[in-house]
């Protein structure tokens, strides 16, 4: 089969870009709900702050796995 068009360059960069969509939306949802709940009931801020940070870190882990695995799958040398 003839090649009509070629996309060259790093595919892992495209992969990371796609992988960053989900965690981006996730972190936005977490902070949005924290801000909303604090706006409705400011006394709850003390109770929900630990959940805020835990949730942020858990969702951010996926985004960072995207960065790290970009290097793992491209250069072949794992961290």
């Amino acid at each position, binding site marked *: 089969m003839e090649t009509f068009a070629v996309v060259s360059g790093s595919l892992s960069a495209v992969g990371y870009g796609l992988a960053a969509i989900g965690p981006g939306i996730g972190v936005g949802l977490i902070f949005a709900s924290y801000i909303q709940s604090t706006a409705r009931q400011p006394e709850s801020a003390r109770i929900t702050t630990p959940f805020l940070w835990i949730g942020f870190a858990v969702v951010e882990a996926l985004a*960072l796995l995207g960065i790290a695995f970009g290097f793992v799958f491209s250069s072949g040398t794992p*961290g």
Partner: protein
Amino acid sequence: MLERPAVLAAEFPPSVEEFFTPSLIAGAGDWLTKFTLYTWVTVALLIIFFLVAYRNPKLVPTKTQWIAESVYGFGRNTVAKDMIGPEGIRFAPYLTTLFVFILVMNFYAIVPGIQISPNSHIAFPAILAVISYVMFIWLGVRKHGFGKYFKTALMPPAPWFMMPILIPIELFSTFIARPATLALRLFANMFAGHMILLVFTLGGFALFNADSLWIKPLSLLSWLMAVVLTFLEFLIIVLQSYVFVVLTSSYIQGALADEH
């Protein structure tokens, strides 16, 4: 500003090779690197700090004693008591030690001259995650008995026909994903943080050494971003050590929980 000041123009873009530093003393063997040295420095620092702070404890604390007590108070009250409950106090020493250890190990990522954290090699977070993993399984087995613990851990309260789906999910989530994500989360944060700082710092040098005179001022912007991201990195450092400890205590609480 660079890790290796002898090499002024390090190659840009930075690669994973930046994380494998040469031996500190040439000929001493590959094991003596920045990472092993600063792990030992961390241990020495923490032992000396807490010993000295509590050498002559007074009722009205001195400044060092107050700092040490605040750190332990944070680990005891905010982490152990809130997450595990009153019986969690006996874990407070380990959780506090874990918190300060990871905090100091992470902190090397922004100290000028060191600028890399031993936690950016998967080995160190992996061991800490394995300790947490063995810990919560051991505690659950010791409290409930071997069979009972795995029964309550693997079978959530759900109708019997859902079990064939739920048991593999619970097995994967509790016994495979928990230690893996604990380690990977800490490692990936430190790895990515160091990589980002490298990109902006080395990128500044690459822009500075560009041929065109119009591009050279952009190097200042790049270095400004490096400064801003260093502050962000500080937030990530504290947050990741907090999250590791809080998740460990949450798993302990789950293992010690009485069945519904």
